[in-house]
């Protein structure tokens, strides 16, 4: 069965900290995505990666960076966490972004910035 694993379900950090969210997929998918989900706003794309070491900005990349050193792992980095980055973060993977093939999601990381 396909699996996308996010390293933490819940995380509490302080403002100004550098925060790493990790995501691993076991489906050999080319594409990986990071979204944040906030009430009433749906899912918003932060960054995606279509290959190792390749990345593209999504709709709300400010304050975030990403890293993809291996095909199966995609990391989201909050360079200096702020309270407005408190949110649910969802990682997904999929094939053929250009044809919008179904994405497979992890269970999310609920991040609180104090």
């Amino acid at each position, binding site marked *: 069965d396909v699996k996308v694993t996010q390293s933490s379900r819940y995380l509490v950090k302080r403002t100004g900290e550098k925060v790493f969210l990790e995501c691993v997929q076991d489906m050999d998918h080319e594409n990986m995505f990071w979204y944040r989900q906030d009430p009433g706003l*749906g899912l918003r794309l932060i960054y995606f990666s279509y290959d190792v070491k390749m990345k593209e900005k999504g709709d709300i990349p400010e304050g975030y960076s990403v890293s993809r050193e291996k095909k199966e792992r995609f990391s989201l980095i909050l360079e200096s966490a702020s309270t407005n980055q408190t949110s649910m973060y969802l990682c997904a993977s999929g094939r053929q972004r250009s044809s*919008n093939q*179904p994405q497979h999601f992890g269970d999310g990381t609920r991040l609180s910035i104090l």
Partner: protein
Amino acid sequence: SQQGEEDPQALSIQEGENATMNCSYKTSINNLQWYRQNSGRGLVHLILIRSNEREKHSGRLRVTLDTSKKSSSLLITASRAADTASYFCNLLYSSASKIIFGSGTRLSIRP
């Protein structure tokens, strides 16, 4: 805005009844998908319908697509308590290669 819009935002029905939720969009799409999200969990893909298709079925799910009205409907028949979840449409806009998730419909099934 190119955002996919679902309606209603929330829906509460009796177990056994049918649930219908809708998704509207602005410009032409390549395909449209529906996802389910149980509380506190990630999204699960339900069904994909291509722009040249009008209807698809999967078990108790029926999806329709009307490209002239730029809208899609998800029908869940004979609802069960386990159907309680949020449902999202997801679109790929042809022109911008932009993937959009709607803001979702929260479905509650009353016993």
